């Protein structure tokens, strides 16, 4: 039997990382998502995967929230959002790199940021990400490629004179 409850932590993480909002705003969105899931449980495709389905609901809610925010002309001030939006109170050195990463992430258009987060952080396969975003898999790949390239460029430009930021070291 599929359980929704174990997926809630990941939904909270995706909401907070995509919106780059504080925990309360992101959790409100997750709550909307879960309420929809409860009312629409019967609409779920029998052969579908609950995780993909929930991420789809959450993603659509997040995107409409982001677009509303754009229409209304307000945005979360990045400096305020940084600490609230991410869980780690950084140490000084790590904090520097962490800040760069967050700022670089903020420069990505929403469609690239969502692909990058779904694939890199939420561990969705490319096919699952395509379902969540309702785009062909080729579009997922091209957005992912552009997102990574752009993030790299932004971080390289931000990196201190000592060269490439140590966060970019290959970890294997």
């Amino acid at each position, binding site marked *: 039997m599929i359980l929704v409850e174990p997926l809630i932590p990941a939904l909270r*993480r995706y909401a907070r990382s995509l919106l780059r909002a504080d925990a309360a705003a992101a959790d409100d969105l997750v709550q909307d998502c879960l309420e929809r899931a*409860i*009312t629409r449980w*019967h609409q779920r495709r029998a052969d579908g995967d609950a995780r993909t389905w929930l991420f789809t609901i959450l993603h659509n809610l997040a995107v409409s929230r982001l677009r509303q925010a754009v229409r209304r002309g307000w945005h979360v001030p990045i400096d305020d959002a940084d600490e609230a939006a991410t*869980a780690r109170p950084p140490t000084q050195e790590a904090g520097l790199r962490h800040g760069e990463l967050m700022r670089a992430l903020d420069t990505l258009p929403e469609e690239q940021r969502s692909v990058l987060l779904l694939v890199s952080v939420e561990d969705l396969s490319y096919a699952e990400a395509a379902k969540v975003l309702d785009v062909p898999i080729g579009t997922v790949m091209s957005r*992912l490629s552009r997102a990574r390239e752009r993030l790299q460029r932004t971080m390289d430009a931000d990196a201190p004179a000592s060269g490439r930021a140590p966060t970019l070291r290959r970890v294997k």
Partner: protein
Amino acid sequence: MNPNLPITEDDLHGYVDQALAPERRAEVEAYLASHPEVAQRIAGYAGQREALRDAFGPIAEEPVPPQLSLARMIEARRSPARHLPWRAAAAAVLLLAIGGAGGWLSRGLSQPAPAGIAALAQEGADTYAVYASDRNRAVELGAADREQLVRWVSNRLQRPIAVPDLASAGYRFMGGRLVATPHGPAGMFMYDDDHGTRIAMLVRPMEIEGDTPMSERSRGAVSGVTWAEQGLGYTLVGAKPADVLHPLADEMRRQISAGQDSVKL
């Protein structure tokens, strides 16, 4: 090593995301070994991936706030003002599986559904949840078949039913359908604005509370304004704050009580 297929950009991302089959992974590794510039770029991407996971990973370790407890959400839906629709009950069983669900189901089903305004508001919200989100088939009869729709709904409700016109408020009539409620058939009419935001009105005969002033209700992002007049109950529902819907509901009520001469058949 001679790769069978040329290494593509997709392979490189698959390598970063550890999504390649072992043989392909080995081919990509061999390719990277002989292309240091590409290898440097890909190492950067892998570093990004790790940095993002490090940054956001801890969020998933946090305790989930009580606001997001499924048991609590389902409990809230079962409060006396709104009966628990059987589909939500079924959903609850699946969502909660075995843990912690004991006891609520039998109570939820044995409670008589309220028949009045609160029930209508709930039916409106449920109808909206199902149809407003349906991209392709939100309505069964479109605006072009308005006359047929009005005849259909009026016949089934055994009352002349009017379709209010909200064009002056920026909402186009999309069409509607007949929907089932625990209190018999209801007519649903849907409207949308230039942003594609949909609102829906549900109308059905009222056994009780047939003349009731407007009241507002909200559930999550969805609100409803509900009233009854001359034995017909109406609820206007949308993903908007209730105070935004209220003037639209006022306009609908004005047109309906103006004796249906606003109805363009």
